[in-house]
Protein backbone atom coordinates (compact mmCIF):
# COMPACT_ATOMS: atom_id res chain seq x y z
CA UNK A 1 0.00 0.00 0.00
CA UNK A 2 1.35 3.35 -0.96
CA UNK A 3 1.93 5.86 1.79
CA UNK A 4 -0.62 8.61 2.20
CA UNK A 5 0.37 12.01 0.85
CA UNK A 6 -0.10 14.95 3.20
CA UNK A 7 -1.30 17.67 0.85
CA UNK A 8 -0.49 20.59 3.09
CA UNK A 9 1.37 21.24 6.36
CA UNK A 10 2.23 24.45 8.14
CA UNK A 11 5.67 24.54 9.65
CA UNK A 12 6.26 27.11 12.39
CA UNK A 13 9.97 27.22 12.97
CA UNK A 14 12.49 29.22 15.02
CA UNK A 15 14.83 31.28 12.83
CA UNK A 16 17.89 32.89 14.31
CA UNK A 17 20.78 34.20 12.21
CA UNK A 18 23.53 33.54 14.73
CA UNK A 19 24.18 33.31 18.46
CA UNK A 20 24.03 37.07 18.92
CA UNK A 21 20.95 37.86 16.84
CA UNK A 22 17.43 37.94 18.16
CA UNK A 23 15.39 35.09 16.75
CA UNK A 24 11.76 34.86 15.70
CA UNK A 25 9.23 32.30 14.51
CA UNK A 26 8.52 31.97 10.78
CA UNK A 27 5.70 30.02 9.20
CA UNK A 28 6.24 28.06 5.98
CA UNK A 29 3.67 26.01 4.09
CA UNK A 30 4.80 22.73 2.58
CA UNK A 31 2.86 20.53 0.18
CA UNK A 32 2.69 16.87 -0.85
CA UNK A 33 4.72 15.17 1.85
CA UNK A 34 4.54 11.39 1.92
CA UNK A 35 3.72 9.92 5.32
CA UNK A 36 6.44 7.42 4.56
CA UNK A 37 9.14 10.06 4.67
CA UNK A 38 11.03 10.85 7.82
CA UNK A 39 10.69 14.12 9.67
CA UNK A 40 14.18 15.20 8.65
CA UNK A 41 13.44 14.33 5.01
CA UNK A 42 10.45 16.62 5.26
CA UNK A 43 12.80 19.36 6.50
CA UNK A 44 15.22 18.57 3.64
CA UNK A 45 12.37 19.05 1.16
CA UNK A 46 11.31 22.26 2.87
CA UNK A 47 14.90 23.51 2.71
CA UNK A 48 15.08 22.74 -1.02
CA UNK A 49 11.93 24.79 -1.53
CA UNK A 50 13.41 27.64 0.51
CA UNK A 51 16.63 27.59 -1.49
CA UNK A 52 14.65 27.77 -4.73
CA UNK A 53 12.88 30.84 -3.37
CA UNK A 54 16.19 32.38 -2.37
CA UNK A 55 15.55 32.00 1.35
CA UNK A 56 18.33 30.79 3.67
CA UNK A 57 17.65 27.10 4.51
CA UNK A 58 16.81 26.12 8.07
CA UNK A 59 19.86 24.92 10.01
CA UNK A 60 19.36 21.80 12.13
CA UNK A 61 21.65 19.15 13.61
CA UNK A 62 21.77 15.59 12.32
CA UNK A 63 24.34 12.96 11.52
CA UNK A 64 23.72 9.21 11.58
CA UNK A 65 19.96 9.42 10.94
CA UNK A 66 19.57 6.03 12.55
CA UNK A 67 19.09 6.91 16.19
CA UNK A 68 22.53 6.17 17.56
CA UNK A 69 24.71 9.26 17.40
CA UNK A 70 22.61 11.71 19.45
CA UNK A 71 23.22 14.57 17.07
CA UNK A 72 19.65 15.33 16.00
CA UNK A 73 17.53 17.39 18.37
CA UNK A 74 14.41 19.58 17.78
CA UNK A 75 11.56 20.35 20.14
CA UNK A 76 8.57 19.38 18.00
CA UNK A 77 5.02 20.29 19.05
CA UNK A 78 5.99 20.50 22.69
CA UNK A 79 8.07 17.32 22.80
CA UNK A 80 11.81 16.79 22.40
CA UNK A 81 12.23 14.47 19.38
CA UNK A 82 8.54 14.90 18.59
CA UNK A 83 5.34 13.09 19.48
CA UNK A 84 6.60 9.50 19.11
CA UNK A 85 8.08 7.68 22.12
CA UNK A 86 11.51 6.07 22.38
CA UNK A 87 12.74 7.50 19.09
CA UNK A 88 15.03 10.33 18.08
CA UNK A 89 13.93 13.01 15.62
CA UNK A 90 15.78 11.24 12.81
CA UNK A 91 13.64 8.13 13.42
CA UNK A 92 10.40 10.10 13.56
CA UNK A 93 8.11 9.55 10.61
CA UNK A 94 5.57 11.81 9.00
CA UNK A 95 2.91 9.18 9.61
CA UNK A 96 2.75 10.65 13.11
CA UNK A 97 1.22 13.79 11.52
CA UNK A 98 -1.97 14.54 9.67
CA UNK A 99 -3.26 16.58 6.79
CA UNK A 100 -3.30 20.30 7.56
CA UNK A 101 -1.30 20.00 10.81
CA UNK A 102 0.63 22.92 12.14
CA UNK A 103 4.02 21.69 13.35
CA UNK A 104 5.97 23.92 15.73
CA UNK A 105 9.71 23.32 15.75
CA UNK A 106 11.92 24.93 18.40
CA UNK A 107 15.53 24.48 19.47
CA UNK A 108 16.39 22.97 22.89
CA UNK A 109 15.89 25.76 25.42
CA UNK A 110 18.42 25.95 28.22
CA UNK A 111 20.87 28.50 29.53
CA UNK A 112 23.59 25.86 29.15
CA UNK A 113 22.65 25.13 25.50
CA UNK A 114 22.82 28.50 23.72
CA UNK A 115 21.36 28.69 20.22
CA UNK A 116 24.05 28.94 17.53
CA UNK A 117 21.80 29.23 14.51
CA UNK A 118 18.11 28.45 13.89
CA UNK A 119 17.52 25.05 15.50
CA UNK A 120 21.13 24.26 16.33
CA UNK A 121 22.22 24.64 19.93
CA UNK A 122 25.71 24.31 21.38
CA UNK A 123 25.72 21.10 23.42
CA UNK A 124 29.43 21.13 24.22
CA UNK A 125 28.42 21.57 27.86
CA UNK A 126 27.80 17.80 27.83
CA UNK A 127 31.33 17.20 26.56
CA UNK A 128 32.70 19.37 29.33
CA UNK A 129 30.78 17.34 31.93
CA UNK A 130 32.20 14.12 30.48
CA UNK A 131 35.70 15.55 30.47
CA UNK A 132 35.28 16.43 34.14
CA UNK A 133 34.97 12.79 35.17
CA UNK A 134 33.02 10.55 32.80
CA UNK A 135 35.95 8.25 32.07
CA UNK A 136 38.14 5.54 33.54
CA UNK A 137 41.89 6.01 33.49
CA UNK A 138 43.54 3.06 31.76
CA UNK A 139 47.27 2.52 31.90
CA UNK A 140 48.88 1.23 28.73
CA UNK A 141 50.23 -2.29 28.68
CA UNK A 142 49.20 -5.69 27.46
CA UNK A 143 45.55 -6.43 26.72
CA UNK A 144 43.99 -7.83 29.92
CA UNK A 145 41.87 -10.98 29.79
CA UNK A 146 38.23 -9.88 29.61
CA UNK A 147 37.17 -12.65 31.97
CA UNK A 148 39.72 -11.81 34.63
CA UNK A 149 37.35 -9.29 36.24
CA UNK A 150 34.08 -10.90 37.30
CA UNK A 151 30.93 -8.85 36.65
CA UNK A 152 27.48 -10.13 37.57
CA UNK A 153 24.95 -10.37 34.79
CA UNK A 154 22.58 -7.91 36.52
CA UNK A 155 25.32 -5.31 36.92
CA UNK A 156 26.38 -5.72 33.32
CA UNK A 157 22.78 -5.26 32.17
CA UNK A 158 22.23 -2.15 34.28
CA UNK A 159 25.52 -0.67 33.15
CA UNK A 160 24.56 -1.31 29.52
CA UNK A 161 21.11 0.22 30.03
CA UNK A 162 22.73 3.38 31.38
CA UNK A 163 25.34 3.33 28.62
CA UNK A 164 22.52 3.47 26.06
CA UNK A 165 22.44 7.24 26.66
CA UNK A 166 23.41 8.96 23.40
CA UNK A 167 23.88 12.36 25.02
CA UNK A 168 21.33 14.11 22.82
CA UNK A 169 20.12 16.51 25.52
CA UNK A 170 16.44 15.52 25.54
CA UNK A 171 16.49 15.34 29.34
CA UNK A 172 17.59 18.97 29.55
CA UNK A 173 15.08 20.05 26.90
CA UNK A 174 12.19 18.20 28.57
CA UNK A 175 12.91 19.18 32.17
CA UNK A 176 11.10 22.23 33.46
CA UNK A 177 14.34 23.12 35.25
CA UNK A 178 16.66 22.39 32.30
CA UNK A 179 18.40 19.90 34.53
CA UNK A 180 21.06 17.58 33.13
CA UNK A 181 20.71 15.07 35.97
CA UNK A 182 19.48 12.19 33.80
CA UNK A 183 22.46 12.55 31.45
CA UNK A 184 24.98 12.88 34.27
CA UNK A 185 23.41 10.03 36.21
CA UNK A 186 23.55 7.74 33.17
CA UNK A 187 27.20 8.56 32.64
CA UNK A 188 28.02 8.06 36.32
CA UNK A 189 25.95 4.86 36.52
CA UNK A 190 27.38 2.94 33.59
CA UNK A 191 30.79 3.22 35.23
CA UNK A 192 29.62 2.91 38.84
CA UNK A 193 28.02 -0.46 38.07
CA UNK A 194 31.34 -1.93 36.89
CA UNK A 195 34.47 -2.78 38.91
CA UNK A 196 36.65 -0.71 36.56
CA UNK A 197 34.63 2.37 37.51
CA UNK A 198 35.11 2.01 41.26
CA UNK A 199 38.60 3.43 41.47
CA UNK A 200 37.60 6.94 40.45
CA UNK A 201 33.96 6.76 41.61
CA UNK A 202 34.10 9.44 44.30
CA UNK A 203 35.92 12.03 42.24
CA UNK A 204 33.77 11.25 39.25
CA UNK A 205 30.48 12.05 40.99
CA UNK A 206 31.94 15.11 42.68
CA UNK A 207 33.53 16.59 39.57
CA UNK A 208 30.71 15.87 37.15
CA UNK A 209 28.10 17.43 39.44
CA UNK A 210 30.33 20.45 40.05
CA UNK A 211 30.80 20.92 36.30
CA UNK A 212 27.09 20.52 35.65
CA UNK A 213 26.32 23.22 38.22
CA UNK A 214 29.01 25.52 36.89
CA UNK A 215 27.63 25.34 33.34
CA UNK A 216 24.22 26.64 34.40
CA UNK A 217 21.96 23.60 34.27
CA UNK A 218 19.08 23.59 36.75
CA UNK A 219 18.57 21.09 39.55
CA UNK A 220 16.46 17.95 39.60
CA UNK A 221 13.01 18.04 41.20
CA UNK A 222 12.14 14.47 40.27
CA UNK A 223 9.24 15.26 37.95
CA UNK A 224 10.28 12.39 35.69
CA UNK A 225 9.75 14.34 32.44
CA UNK A 226 13.28 13.34 31.33
CA UNK A 227 12.65 9.60 31.55
CA UNK A 228 9.31 9.95 29.76
CA UNK A 229 10.86 11.82 26.84
CA UNK A 230 14.25 10.07 26.67
CA UNK A 231 14.62 8.28 23.30
CA UNK A 232 16.60 5.57 25.07
CA UNK A 233 14.27 5.32 28.11
CA UNK A 234 17.06 5.91 30.61
CA UNK A 235 15.55 5.30 34.05
CA UNK A 236 15.44 7.96 36.78
CA UNK A 237 16.64 5.24 39.16
CA UNK A 238 20.04 6.29 37.82
CA UNK A 239 19.43 9.71 39.37
CA UNK A 240 18.94 8.07 42.76
CA UNK A 241 22.25 6.30 42.21
CA UNK A 242 23.97 9.54 41.28
CA UNK A 243 22.58 11.18 44.43
CA UNK A 244 23.88 8.22 46.44
CA UNK A 245 27.33 8.39 44.84
CA UNK A 246 27.56 12.15 45.19
CA UNK A 247 26.36 12.31 48.79
CA UNK A 248 28.65 9.52 49.92
CA UNK A 249 31.57 11.22 48.14
CA UNK A 250 30.83 14.53 49.84
CA UNK A 251 30.25 13.05 53.28
CA UNK A 252 33.52 11.14 53.18
CA UNK A 253 35.53 14.30 52.49
Amino acid sequence: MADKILKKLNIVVWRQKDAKSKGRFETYAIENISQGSSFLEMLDILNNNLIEKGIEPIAFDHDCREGICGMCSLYINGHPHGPDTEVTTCQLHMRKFDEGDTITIEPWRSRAFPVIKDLIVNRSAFDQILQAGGYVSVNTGGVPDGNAIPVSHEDAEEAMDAAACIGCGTCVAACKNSSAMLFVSAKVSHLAKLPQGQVEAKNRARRMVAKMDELGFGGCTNTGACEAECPKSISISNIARLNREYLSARFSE
Partner: protein
Amino acid sequence: MSKFVFTSVGRKFMMSITGLFLLMFILVHLTVNLLMIFDDTGALYNQGAHFMVSNPVIRIVEPVLGLGFLIHIIWSLIITWENWRARPVRYKKATRSEATSWASRNMFILGGLVFVFLGIHLYNFYIKIKFTGSPLLEEVMVGDTNVHNTYLLVSTLFKESILYCALYIMGGILLGLHVTHGFWSAFQTIGFNNKQWLNRLQWVARIYAVLVAVGFSIIPLYFIIRF
Protein backbone atom coordinates in the same frame (compact mmCIF):
# COMPACT_ATOMS: atom_id res chain seq x y z
CA MET B 1 31.43 21.42 53.17
CA SER B 2 29.87 24.86 53.45
CA LYS B 3 29.55 25.01 49.67
CA PHE B 4 27.84 21.62 49.62
CA VAL B 5 24.45 22.98 50.65
CA PHE B 6 24.43 25.25 47.58
CA THR B 7 25.36 22.60 44.99
CA SER B 8 22.43 21.30 42.96
CA VAL B 9 22.34 17.98 44.81
CA GLY B 10 23.13 19.63 48.15
CA ARG B 11 20.24 22.06 47.79
CA LYS B 12 17.87 19.19 47.19
CA PHE B 13 19.45 17.33 50.10
CA MET B 14 18.49 20.22 52.39
CA MET B 15 14.93 20.15 51.04
CA SER B 16 14.61 16.41 51.52
CA ILE B 17 16.06 16.22 55.04
CA THR B 18 13.85 19.06 56.28
CA GLY B 19 10.94 17.64 54.26
CA LEU B 20 11.31 14.21 55.85
CA PHE B 21 11.46 15.81 59.27
CA LEU B 22 8.28 17.78 58.52
CA LEU B 23 6.60 14.58 57.33
CA MET B 24 7.24 13.00 60.73
CA PHE B 25 6.05 16.07 62.56
CA ILE B 26 2.82 16.11 60.55
CA LEU B 27 2.04 12.53 61.60
CA VAL B 28 2.45 13.36 65.29
CA HIS B 29 0.43 16.54 64.88
CA LEU B 30 -2.37 14.69 63.12
CA THR B 31 -2.48 11.98 65.78
CA VAL B 32 -2.94 14.51 68.58
CA ASN B 33 -5.55 16.46 66.58
CA LEU B 34 -7.62 13.38 65.93
CA LEU B 35 -8.15 13.00 69.69
CA MET B 36 -10.63 15.87 69.26
CA ILE B 37 -13.21 13.78 67.48
CA PHE B 38 -13.12 10.94 69.96
CA ASP B 39 -14.23 12.89 73.00
CA ASP B 40 -16.72 15.77 72.82
CA THR B 41 -15.92 16.92 76.35
CA GLY B 42 -12.46 17.76 75.06
CA ALA B 43 -10.69 16.16 78.02
CA LEU B 44 -8.86 13.65 75.84
CA TYR B 45 -7.57 16.29 73.45
CA ASN B 46 -6.62 18.70 76.24
CA GLN B 47 -4.67 15.93 77.88
CA GLY B 48 -2.89 15.19 74.61
CA ALA B 49 -2.13 18.87 74.02
CA HIS B 50 -0.90 19.24 77.59
CA PHE B 51 1.34 16.23 77.16
CA MET B 52 2.81 17.83 74.05
CA VAL B 53 3.60 21.19 75.65
CA SER B 54 4.95 19.74 78.89
CA ASN B 55 7.00 16.94 77.35
CA PRO B 56 10.74 17.82 77.46
CA VAL B 57 11.40 16.02 74.17
CA ILE B 58 8.80 18.14 72.41
CA ARG B 59 10.23 21.28 74.00
CA ILE B 60 13.59 20.51 72.46
CA VAL B 61 12.08 19.54 69.12
CA GLU B 62 9.98 22.71 68.84
CA PRO B 63 12.81 25.10 67.91
CA VAL B 64 14.25 22.42 65.64
CA LEU B 65 10.89 22.27 63.93
CA GLY B 66 10.86 26.02 63.45
CA LEU B 67 14.33 25.80 61.97
CA GLY B 68 13.23 22.90 59.75
CA PHE B 69 10.40 24.99 58.33
CA LEU B 70 12.67 27.97 57.87
CA ILE B 71 15.33 26.00 56.00
CA HIS B 72 12.72 24.19 53.90
CA ILE B 73 11.16 27.49 52.89
CA ILE B 74 14.39 29.39 52.26
CA TRP B 75 15.87 26.53 50.21
CA SER B 76 12.61 26.20 48.27
CA LEU B 77 13.11 29.83 47.22
CA ILE B 78 16.71 29.13 46.24
CA ILE B 79 16.00 26.02 44.17
CA THR B 80 12.94 27.51 42.50
CA TRP B 81 14.88 30.65 41.55
CA GLU B 82 17.90 28.70 40.28
CA ASN B 83 15.74 26.30 38.31
CA TRP B 84 13.74 29.12 36.79
CA ARG B 85 16.94 30.87 35.74
CA ALA B 86 18.21 27.77 33.94
CA ARG B 87 15.79 28.41 31.06
CA PRO B 88 15.99 32.08 30.09
CA VAL B 89 13.98 31.59 26.88
CA ARG B 90 10.75 29.64 27.33
CA TYR B 91 9.16 27.34 24.77
CA LYS B 92 6.38 28.65 22.58
CA LYS B 93 4.62 25.33 22.75
CA ALA B 94 5.62 23.67 26.01
CA THR B 95 5.20 20.00 26.82
CA ARG B 96 2.07 19.10 28.68
CA SER B 97 4.11 16.24 30.17
CA GLU B 98 1.32 13.71 30.52
CA ALA B 99 3.85 11.46 32.21
CA THR B 100 4.60 13.86 35.07
CA SER B 101 2.28 14.57 37.97
CA TRP B 102 0.71 17.97 38.36
CA ALA B 103 1.93 18.17 41.95
CA SER B 104 5.53 17.50 40.92
CA ARG B 105 5.42 20.45 38.52
CA ASN B 106 3.85 22.80 41.05
CA MET B 107 5.65 22.08 44.29
CA PHE B 108 6.54 25.71 44.91
CA ILE B 109 2.96 26.89 44.42
CA LEU B 110 1.60 24.11 46.62
CA GLY B 111 4.26 24.78 49.25
CA GLY B 112 3.57 28.50 49.05
CA LEU B 113 -0.13 27.95 49.66
CA VAL B 114 0.70 25.65 52.57
CA PHE B 115 2.86 28.50 53.85
CA VAL B 116 -0.05 30.97 53.67
CA PHE B 117 -2.21 28.48 55.50
CA LEU B 118 0.54 27.98 58.07
CA GLY B 119 0.56 31.72 58.80
CA ILE B 120 -3.19 31.81 59.41
CA HIS B 121 -3.00 28.63 61.44
CA LEU B 122 -0.25 29.98 63.71
CA TYR B 123 -2.26 33.18 64.16
CA ASN B 124 -5.40 31.21 65.09
CA PHE B 125 -3.85 28.98 67.71
CA TYR B 126 -0.13 29.08 68.32
CA ILE B 127 0.14 32.83 68.97
CA LYS B 128 -2.82 32.71 71.34
CA ILE B 129 -1.58 29.69 73.23
CA LYS B 130 2.01 30.86 73.50
CA PHE B 131 1.81 34.62 73.75
CA THR B 132 -1.39 36.62 73.74
CA GLY B 133 -3.67 34.19 75.51
CA SER B 134 -7.43 34.03 75.03
CA PRO B 135 -10.41 33.92 77.41
CA LEU B 136 -11.32 30.61 75.79
CA LEU B 137 -8.09 29.12 77.00
CA GLU B 138 -9.02 29.30 80.70
CA GLU B 139 -7.61 26.40 82.63
CA VAL B 140 -9.61 23.27 83.20
CA MET B 141 -8.98 20.24 85.36
CA VAL B 142 -8.13 17.06 83.55
CA GLY B 143 -7.50 14.24 85.99
CA ASP B 144 -5.51 15.96 88.70
CA THR B 145 -3.73 18.61 86.63
CA ASN B 146 -4.72 22.05 85.47
CA VAL B 147 -4.41 22.40 81.71
CA HIS B 148 -5.27 25.04 79.10
CA ASN B 149 -8.60 24.44 77.47
CA THR B 150 -7.12 24.23 73.99
CA TYR B 151 -10.10 22.16 72.94
CA LEU B 152 -12.44 25.09 73.55
CA LEU B 153 -10.24 27.41 71.49
CA VAL B 154 -10.17 25.04 68.53
CA SER B 155 -13.75 23.83 68.68
CA THR B 156 -15.10 27.38 69.02
CA LEU B 157 -13.32 28.40 65.83
CA PHE B 158 -14.74 25.46 63.91
CA LYS B 159 -18.24 25.72 65.40
CA GLU B 160 -18.54 29.44 64.75
CA SER B 161 -17.01 29.79 61.33
CA ILE B 162 -17.79 27.66 58.33
CA LEU B 163 -15.23 29.75 56.48
CA TYR B 164 -12.44 28.63 58.79
CA CYS B 165 -13.64 25.05 58.45
CA ALA B 166 -13.33 25.35 54.68
CA LEU B 167 -9.89 26.91 55.05
CA TYR B 168 -8.63 24.10 57.24
CA ILE B 169 -10.01 21.50 54.85
CA MET B 170 -8.20 23.28 52.03
CA GLY B 171 -5.02 23.29 54.10
CA GLY B 172 -5.21 19.53 54.55
CA ILE B 173 -5.79 18.93 50.85
CA LEU B 174 -2.96 21.25 49.79
CA LEU B 175 -0.54 19.56 52.15
CA GLY B 176 -1.71 16.18 50.88
CA LEU B 177 -0.99 17.23 47.29
CA HIS B 178 2.42 18.62 48.26
CA VAL B 179 3.45 15.34 49.82
CA THR B 180 2.11 13.04 47.07
CA HIS B 181 5.25 14.13 45.28
CA GLY B 182 7.36 15.27 48.24
CA PHE B 183 7.26 11.97 50.06
CA TRP B 184 8.85 9.76 47.40
CA SER B 185 10.92 12.59 45.98
CA ALA B 186 12.69 13.01 49.32
CA PHE B 187 13.79 9.37 49.25
CA GLN B 188 14.95 9.71 45.66
CA THR B 189 16.97 12.78 46.65
CA ILE B 190 18.84 11.05 49.46
CA GLY B 191 19.56 8.18 47.09
CA PHE B 192 17.21 5.65 48.67
CA ASN B 193 15.49 4.48 45.52
CA ASN B 194 15.83 2.07 42.63
CA LYS B 195 13.58 0.46 40.02
CA GLN B 196 11.77 -1.73 42.57
CA TRP B 197 11.45 0.87 45.28
CA LEU B 198 10.21 3.66 43.01
CA ASN B 199 6.80 2.06 42.72
CA ARG B 200 6.62 1.12 46.39
CA LEU B 201 7.59 4.60 47.56
CA GLN B 202 5.08 6.21 45.22
CA TRP B 203 2.35 4.04 46.71
CA VAL B 204 3.35 4.82 50.28
CA ALA B 205 3.41 8.49 49.26
CA ARG B 206 -0.18 8.25 48.03
CA ILE B 207 -1.31 6.49 51.19
CA TYR B 208 0.46 9.05 53.36
CA ALA B 209 -1.03 11.92 51.36
CA VAL B 210 -4.58 10.57 51.61
CA LEU B 211 -4.08 9.98 55.33
CA VAL B 212 -2.96 13.58 55.82
CA ALA B 213 -5.61 15.16 53.60
CA VAL B 214 -8.49 13.10 55.00
CA GLY B 215 -7.16 13.15 58.56
CA PHE B 216 -6.89 16.92 58.81
CA SER B 217 -10.13 17.57 56.90
CA ILE B 218 -12.19 15.22 59.00
CA ILE B 219 -11.82 17.38 62.09
CA PRO B 220 -13.54 20.56 60.81
CA LEU B 221 -16.01 18.32 58.96
CA TYR B 222 -16.83 16.61 62.22
CA PHE B 223 -17.63 19.95 63.86
CA ILE B 224 -19.73 21.09 60.88
CA ILE B 225 -21.77 17.91 60.83
CA ARG B 226 -22.15 17.41 64.56
CA PHE B 227 -22.68 20.93 65.84
